[in-house]
């Protein structure tokens, strides 16, 4: 099975950071074709037809998102989301460091498609190396006439600005990202209005993930039908899946959507380590509920994941074998969300910390039997009551493992009674 068919093609074989190498493999041809021979609306239509859905987590159809932009004559912006911090996800960093021109070309095509003259990329603060590589690539692209005044010799002006984050997971949420880009605290905004109506500087704005944008040039090259023909009817095309945890070959694998989970774990990631037994897999980042043995033959696509009470999210798969302490695993993720809560909503801010305290207590042997029941009930009182999805992300993993591995949690609270 080819696990680097499109975006990952050439990584590790050629230095795709060099614009000459990128161009020698057909790079920037699609940008030229787009701005020289295509109308923006044509590109929107091709992308809609391809069925491409956002690869940043929510899976929203990209073409449809672009069509929400109002025709009000205001400037509009395209923002590339490279804030990647969802636990288990490590694909955007690879794209940034290994094949930055692919992101740049996608940003430029996307910006042209929505008739924007200014595109931004928000790069996670921790990715200093990625930022430096990307900056060098932007300079090459600018020198080659792809960025700036009159790109590709046309009269279309298109600026590209790189913005570095400074440490905050929540800035990956699109409205928090826009606040951060405006020089503010990275706190999510109330929606509606959605960014497409009122985004950066109050102007219509599209936020797309770097993997989503990277697929634009391949889709223009090979056609909407090519992409739509891979996967299922509603989950089309390829997806980079980051697989980590207890597998032999953790890494990024680019596969057709609807590839069975078992194939991803066994064939792509080399299966479990010798002598270990599969216990669970978290299929879509830190916010997703676990799947178990009985789910291994499910196709990995948006609908199948949703139907089974979880999600595909950013495509981050964490595999757990029988050495896993799920109480510690739950603590690690609950602590993460508690730490990253921006603090605007009480259920998220307080609920996360209460759960963290409770799990700390359990892990240190100070838990009570009743804590387990409390864990199960309290977590449900957080979900659905918050301004942004972070608050709703605390509970799914926790609930799924408490319910499945309750005995592990109970074992921690079996404290001998003092005589």
């Amino acid at each position, binding site marked *: 099975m080819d696990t680097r068919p499109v975006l990952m093609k050439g990584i590790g074989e050629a230095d795709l950071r060099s614009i000459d190498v990128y161009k020698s493999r057909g790079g920037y041809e699609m940008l030229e074709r787009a701005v020289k021979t295509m109308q923006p609306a044509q590109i929107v239509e091709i992308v809609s037809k391809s069925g491409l859905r956002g690869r940043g987590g929510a899976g929203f159809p990209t073409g449809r998102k672009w069509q929400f932009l109002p025709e009000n004559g205001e400037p509009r912006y395209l923002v590339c989301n490279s804030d990647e*911090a969802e636990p288990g996800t490590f694909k955007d960093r690879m794209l940034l460091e290994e094949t930055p021109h692919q992101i740049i070309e996608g940003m430029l095509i996307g910006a042209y498609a929505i008739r924007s003259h200014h595109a931004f990329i928000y790069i996670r603060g*921790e990715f200093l190396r990625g930022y430096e590589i990307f900056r060098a690539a932007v300079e090459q692209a600018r020198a080659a006439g792809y960025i700036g005044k009159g790109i590709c010799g046309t009269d279309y002006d298109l600026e590209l600005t790189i*913005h570095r984050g*400074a*440490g905050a997971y929540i800035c990956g949420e699109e409205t928090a990202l826009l606040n951060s880009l405006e*020089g503010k605290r990275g706190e999510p905004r109330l929606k509606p209005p959605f960014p497409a109506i009122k985004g950066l500087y109050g102007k219509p704005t599209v936020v797309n993930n770097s993997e989503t944008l990277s697929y634009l040039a391949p889709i223009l090259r090979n056609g909407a039908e090519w992409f739509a023909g891979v996967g299922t009817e509603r989950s089309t095309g390829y997806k980079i899946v980051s697989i980590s*945890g207890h597998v032999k070959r953790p890494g990024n694998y680019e596969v057709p959507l609807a590839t069975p989970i078992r194939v991803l774990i066994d064939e792509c990631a080399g299966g479990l380590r010798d002598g270990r037994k599969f216990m669970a897999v978290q299929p879509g980042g830190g916010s997703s509920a676990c799947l178990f043995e009985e789910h291994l033959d499910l196709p990995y696509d948006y609908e199948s994941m949703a139907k089974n009470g979880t999600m595909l999210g950013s495509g981050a798969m964490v595999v757990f074998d029988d050495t896993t302490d799920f109480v510690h*695993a739950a603590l690690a*993720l609950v602590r993460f969300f508690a730490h990253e809560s921006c603090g605007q909503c009480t259920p998220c801010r307080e609920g996360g910390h209460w759960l963290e305290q409770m799990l700390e207590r359990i892990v240190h042997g100070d838990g009570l039997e009743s804590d387990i029941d409390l864990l199960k009930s309290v977590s449900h009182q957080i979900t659905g009551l918050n301004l942004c999805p972070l608050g709703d992300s605390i509970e799914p993993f926790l609930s799924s493992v408490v319910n499945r591995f309750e005995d592990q949690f109970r074992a921690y609270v079996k404290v001998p009674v003092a005589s």
Partner: protein
Amino acid sequence: MTATSFEELAAALKPEADAIVAQYEDSRSALLPLIHRFQDAQGYVSADAMRTTAEWLGLSLAVVESTVSFYTLFFRRPVGRYMLQVCRNLSCTMNGAGAIMERFRERLGVGHLETTEDGLFSYEEVECLAACDRAPCMQVNLEFVYDLTPQAVDDMVAAIRGGTYPVKPLAQTEAPARSWHVSKDAVPRVPGGRDVPDPNDPGGIGDRTGVIMLDRVVRDLSPDRTRERLVKDGRELLERGH
């Protein structure tokens, strides 16, 4: 850093700052980039840096401080020359991060969010670094280090101490305090300890209030660790003659 040298730094940065501001439709967007520049030069975000940024962007100091305080990579107090940030999230935990963190704590003699006495190391346990395929992992001054083992920790600490570690040290224009964190995550501070409250320090009061200390104790520390902490702090106070 003395007043004149800060003025020199600000003057040297001004042209670049103007170019950064010009990249955005609204000058406030330059806030994070400018603070990054100042931190690169001074090793932390000084009160001077925040004041100057506020002035340049036409913002109030309060707005700049409040924004800076939101981001964990902005250090509002001086830090060590090597910022060690070890991942504590899921895939790393599942692959032995616990032993790595224990080894660092032991070798450095400090805990989460603390700086060593000699000002060489700051240590923090951080969230997923997007390198889960190479777990357990960390960043040293934002350079990735993968596939950690306890032995690799020993080697790294020794190499940094010996001046042979291949990552550039951070700027250090002032001696660090015990912790650089001025937030809800701050390590409980003992009144009259080494960090005497500085009225000019924007975060100098908040992290010393009993409420925050209590919050931290309840939230982050087990009873055992709380006890250890109190004994350690008490011993330090006695040693200093309080």
